[in-house]
């Protein structure tokens, strides 16, 4: 690939590698340092776990690594053979395959592999698969697996719903205290939520930079830069990192530096990333001088409702307002706002075969939004991790034809 199609990386990324490295190092050293490890779903109650002194590990992050390194392709079949269908979440199947084989991308970072959990904590706001995934390890290691069952397809977030989720979150305190061997300090929780909120606000501002024309960052940058917002929310390191990144972004925007040289069109990415193909997709879009400027995915780690003065209820609100657990009407409105705000020319829907929860093309939404917004769309069939479900050639042609169509509009 020529250098013209390579992603223009940020200076700050070097720093991020250090931040993430430190995070993983702490996870590894946890047991020696007498710290307990909690596994947490990506939009689970991380602040509560941190406040209780746990090292918090996010297996979906590991899932994404397995996808990005394409190790997933060889590992998924092991989980399939064990009885996990090839049709269910391929984060789950890659991660369990990785466990069964004892191979992990973390080994390249001199870690033995994912840290063993002392407790597993899920939130079904995103899907049921996370619970099934965690329960597997609960059985393997004979450790508690507890969680929050958030309703899905939520329209209005009313008080009764918030109460219901907040009560479940509070009910976790006791088993989590027990597993941690310590009592919850409510001030520590408030402090963690405050840090998490700062991280959220900064991350949101980072993504907002893409509203500039040309955009100084792409969705593909976002999938890399989101690391700290996912695994280190509620931690000072994430806040410090995004301040640094934001300075660089502001400078880029002020200098009119485009992430995609000669940006002609702006596309919205709806759905999961195709982790094993990010760099070739990014290269193709760059070649077509089309910027994938915004996405639902990267915006899923913006939790505006977090409020240290009302810890449990605000966590309940924050983690129940995310896109994935909302109604079709809400989602449609959300995408419409994004399209307008980021001045989007067309929408790409990724239909991820193993994640119906995060594939929004399946109930006629693309057609409805096309009629409403007058913007063309493209559906790409693929998967987050299972590249057996992806046709590179067809996708390339589809994207090329889509950009031709944007040029005709």
């Amino acid at each position, binding site marked *: 690939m020529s250098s013209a199609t390579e992603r223009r990386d940020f200076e700050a990324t070097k720093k991020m590698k250090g931040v993430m490295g430190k995070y993983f190092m702490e996870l590894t050293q946890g047991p020696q340092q007498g710290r307990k490890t909690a596994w947490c779903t990506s939009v689970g109650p991380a602040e509560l776990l941190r406040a209780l002194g746990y090292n918090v590990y996010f297996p979906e992050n590991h899932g994404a690594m397995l996808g990005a390194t394409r190790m997933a392709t060889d590992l998924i079949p092991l989980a399939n053979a064990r009885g996990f269908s090839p049709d269910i979440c391929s984060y789950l199947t890659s991660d369990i395959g990785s466990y069964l084989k004892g191979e992990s991308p973390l080994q390249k970072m001199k870690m033995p592999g994912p840290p063993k959990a002392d407790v597993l904590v899920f939130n079904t706001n995103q899907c049921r698969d996370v619970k099934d995934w965690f329960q597997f390890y609960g059985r393997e290691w004979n450790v508690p697996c507890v969680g929050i069952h958030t309703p899905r397809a939520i329209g209005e977030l009313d008080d009764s719903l918030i109460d219901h989720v907040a009560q479940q979150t509070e009910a976790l305190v006791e088993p989590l205290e027990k597993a941690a061997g310590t009592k919850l300090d409510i001030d520590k929780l408030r402090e963690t939520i405050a840090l998490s909120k700062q991280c959220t606000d900064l991350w949101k501002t980072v993504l907002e930079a893409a509203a500039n024309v040309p955009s100084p960052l792409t969705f593909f940058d976002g999938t890399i830069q989101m690391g700290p917002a996912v695994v280190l929310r509620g931690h000072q390191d994430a806040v410090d990192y995004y301040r640094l990144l934001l300075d660089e972004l502001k400078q880029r925007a002020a200098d009119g530096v485009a992430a995609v040289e000669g940006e002609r069109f702006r596309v919205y990415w709806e759905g999961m990333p195709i982790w094993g193909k990010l760099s070739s997709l990014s290269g193709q879009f760059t070649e077509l001088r089309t910027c994938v400027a915004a996405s639902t995915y990267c915006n899923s780690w913006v939790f505006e409702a977090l409020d240290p003065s009302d810890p449990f209820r605000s966590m309940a609100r924050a983690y129940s307002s995310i896109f994935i657990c909302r109604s079709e009407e809400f989602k449609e409105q959300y995408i419409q706002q994004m399209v307008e705000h980021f001045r989007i020319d067309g929408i790409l829907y990724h239909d991820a075969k193993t994640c119906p929860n995060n594939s929004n093309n399946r109930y006629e939404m693309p057609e409805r939004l096309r009629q409403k917004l007058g913007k*063309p769309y493209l559906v790409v*069939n693929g998967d987050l991790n299972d590249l057996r*479900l*992806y046709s590179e*050639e*067809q996708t390339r*042609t589809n994207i090329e*034809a889509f950009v031709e*169509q944007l040029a*005709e509009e």
Partner: protein
Amino acid sequence: MHYFCGIDIGASAAKLVLLDENQQVVARTIHHSGVDYAQTADHCLADALSAAGVTRQQIAASLSTGYGRDNVPWVGGKITEIACHGKGAFFHFRRAITVIDIGAQDSKVIHLDNRGRRTSFKMNRKCAAGTGAFLEEIALRLNRPVAELNDLAERSTREVSLGSFCTVFAATEILAKIRAGEQVEDIVKGAFRSVVKRIVEMDTLVGDLVMTGGVAAHNRYLATLAEEAFGTHAHMPPDPQHVGAFGAALFALERHEQGE
């Protein structure tokens, strides 16, 4: 006189069309795509030049399309087969149309408005259902040459229905039908019907129906079944297999005139 060339290297066949300045076709050629696309493209071009009595220097612009579009060294640019099939089909039917292109490895449904602007397109999902590859597999199972399928389907008096999406499962279904003593022609008609069903599922029909591509060109009975399914006449442009190459040549001419 200047000439314009469009070459469409598909998964199975490579097609080339040479146009003069008045959009008249002066030559069209076809070869198996093979594995060396660049060489196949050279063969197509050499044949076309000699058929038309034109020299290479007289070609003012060329464009490539199809799976092998990146592998033709002598063209001035590339463009997708979705754009080219749309362009080529609209040339013959200047009104709002839905173009259905059934290719060897993929099928497309393209909507064009009455100005020829593409409003949407769909390509079949990853599998072979609804493509020429499906019919090839069926021919193999029935031990008949692909070229005979159309006649067989037309002779059928009683249709056998194949229920499965999947090509492999459909092949298994066929084995069961053979065991049950069904006639080959009835099974083939069922297979044709299955291709059409997969296409009907892809998108709605907007405007007139136009069918292009090699598979429909060689299996005209598919068009008859598509007419039944959509309840409307299925138009076919002249030489449906070359529509992609023709569209590419039209783009080449247009771009040349625009000074690109």
